């Protein structure tokens, strides 16, 4: 019954296709989307239990033997990412009920979200590089729809740039795959991991590894390839922004983590050193952006870029603490970013603007929002016992163990800058002289606020339950550290 691996990919796809037939029935669409996501979550939990007990699961489509057919692999890392993705998507959908607007809902919004989920889950699950490209395209196509849906002027303008950047990066992906295929003669990730150590021409493999870093770095927004992200992400409504900010960059980050731990390990001294350097540069560039803007959306968007840097710095260390820290941090970041975007959206709607300088005094009228925002801000910066702490601690520890003391120190210092950047929102929006706020209906306010509270609650639980999550994360990091587990699971008879 390894077919279960495909469930988190197929279920959203099926429901998305069904939803395309009933574009005008908004209530039914909402109900079906909730059903689809709940079913997917339940299936993924079942899969998680199985993977946890039985180790890495794999299946080959059409029963072709592993290096020839397309392989789908589910190890703990991918199944945990799939679960977090689906849970975050569920909250995004709940948040979009009051905010996204009926015209967008009638224009295949929920289908788009579910297709995006198909692509993201598929990218996390696939064990074949070309298949990864195809799933990337699936999620990109859905994201093109979501970024332009509604057709406002700013959306049309920014989506053109977003699409052009992604089309070019897709072309580079195909080019990189072609080079890798001509060198190794295979595209199955486990098979690549077997063959690459046997190849003598390390130089050209390193070139291909850097080419892949460029491709995934464009999707994952690492320095200097993040230039497109801030303006593109600020165009669509907050619900879609939350979905993108929480999920899309993580796919690129996952792809880098997977390829750079599984098979591009032939010249660690160059590739992983480059990755560590680029991630630190990403963090610094993100911090500059986060502190430079007075636009609430932009501040949190630049925090997405910072998080990418932190995760990849942990992954580039290739030691136990670094990898475990990166894993802790990637799950934490998906949850907390969605929560922060939700609350930013709520604040922006209350004031009718995203400019910090026109805000003030919300603490008097909406104290609950203020306190939850404060908790989320502390969680983002990694103040114990909230969720960011364990991940950051392990990443910093990994850096210290591995002669990257400067990187760890920069991460520690920039944590304060991250805190400063989100506290600026708190100070401007919640303190000071009250500004007149828009009246929004109580029910709408509640529908927007409750998903945010639940996500903040989840992140608190995640922070307190770090000890309880440890076996899962350490197992997942173990697979990353010992590729032989992955290879054996895929290439077994």
């Amino acid at each position: 019954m390894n077919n279960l691996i495909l469930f988190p990919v197929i279920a959203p796809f099926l429901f998305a296709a069904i939803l395309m037939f009933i574009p005008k029935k908004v209530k039914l669409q909402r109900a079906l989307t909730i059903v689809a996501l709940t079913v997917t979550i339940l299936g993924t939990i079942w899969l998680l239990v199985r993977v946890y007990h039985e180790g890495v699961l794999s299946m080959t489509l059409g029963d072709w033997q592993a290096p020839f057919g397309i392989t789908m692999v589910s190890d703990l890392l991918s199944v945990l990412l799939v679960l977090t993705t689906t849970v975050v998507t569920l909250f995004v959908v709940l948040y979009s009920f009051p905010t996204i607007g009926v015209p967008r809902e009638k224009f295949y919004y929920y289908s788009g979200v579910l297709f995006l989920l198909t692509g993201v889950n598929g990218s996390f699950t696939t064990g074949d590089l070309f298949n990864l490209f195809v799933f990337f395209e699936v999620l990109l196509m859905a994201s093109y729809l979501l970024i332009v849906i509604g057709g406002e002027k700013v959306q049309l303008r920014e989506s053109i740039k977003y699409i052009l950047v992604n089309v070019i990066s897709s072309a580079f992906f195909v080019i990189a795959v072609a080079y890798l295929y001509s060198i190794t003669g295979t595209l199955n990730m486990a098979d690549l991991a077997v063959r690459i150590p046997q190849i003598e021409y390390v130089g050209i493999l390193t070139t291909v590894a850097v080419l892949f870093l460029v491709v995934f770095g464009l999707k994952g927004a690492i320095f200097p390839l993040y230039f497109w992200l801030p303006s593109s992400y600020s165009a669509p409504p907050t619900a879609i922004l939350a979905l993108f900010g929480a999920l899309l960059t993580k796919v690129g980050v996952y792809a880098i983590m997977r390829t750079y731990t599984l098979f591009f390990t032939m010249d660690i001294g160059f590739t992983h050193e480059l990755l560590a350097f680029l991630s630190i540069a990403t963090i610094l560039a993100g911090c500059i952006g986060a502190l430079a803007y007075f636009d609430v959306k932009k501040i949190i968007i630049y925090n997405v870029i910072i998080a990418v840097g932190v995760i990849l710095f942990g992954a580039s260390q290739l030691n136990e603490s670094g990898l475990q820290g990166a894993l802790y941090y990637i799950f934490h970041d998906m949850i907390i970013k969605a929560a922060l975007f939700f609350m930013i959206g709520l604040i922006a709607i209350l004031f009718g603007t995203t400019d910090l300088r026109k805000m003030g005094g919300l603490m008097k009228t909406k104290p609950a929002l203020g306190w939850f925002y404060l908790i989320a801000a502390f969680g983002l910066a990694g103040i114990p016992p909230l969720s960011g702490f364990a991940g950051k601690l392990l990443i910093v520890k990994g850096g210290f163990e591995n002669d990257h003391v400067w990187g760890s120190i920069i991460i520690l210092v920039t944590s304060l800058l991250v805190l400063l950047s989100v506290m600026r929102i708190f100070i401007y929006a919640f303190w000071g002289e009250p500004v007149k706020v828009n009246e929004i209906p109580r029910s709408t306010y509640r529908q927007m606020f409750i998903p945010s509270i639940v996500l903040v609650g989840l992140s608190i639980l995640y922070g307190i339950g770090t000890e309880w999550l440890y076996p899962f994360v350490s197992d997942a990091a173990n697979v990353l550290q010992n590729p032989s587990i992955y290879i054996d699971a895929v290439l077994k008879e």
Partner: protein
Amino acid sequence: MEIIMAFVIGFLFMAATYLFLTKSLLRVIIGTGLISHGAHLLILTMGGLGGKIPPVLTNGAANGDYADPLPQALILTAIVISFGVTAFILVLAYRAYQELGTDNMDMLKGDDNNE
């Protein structure tokens, strides 16, 4: 044959880069088409050209007599994807032209003061 292909691919990439750097949105879109085709041809070349026997293992077919079938399957997928994306961009460009009144990439810049 591979040498000729390398020149063709290089020319496609060169033309695509030139088109990306022009101001007209339509030319940029044609550039994306060219770069995709260059990438497709690159896969084909990387899989190795030549071979007269169909890629079915029969007795007496030595290694190298048949062309590698996998790159062709990969290209087929990639072509379909680039076809779909190109169609989407063309429609988007048309809508953007209607809505924004320009197809000049310089006019499509945006910042905090010009939303």
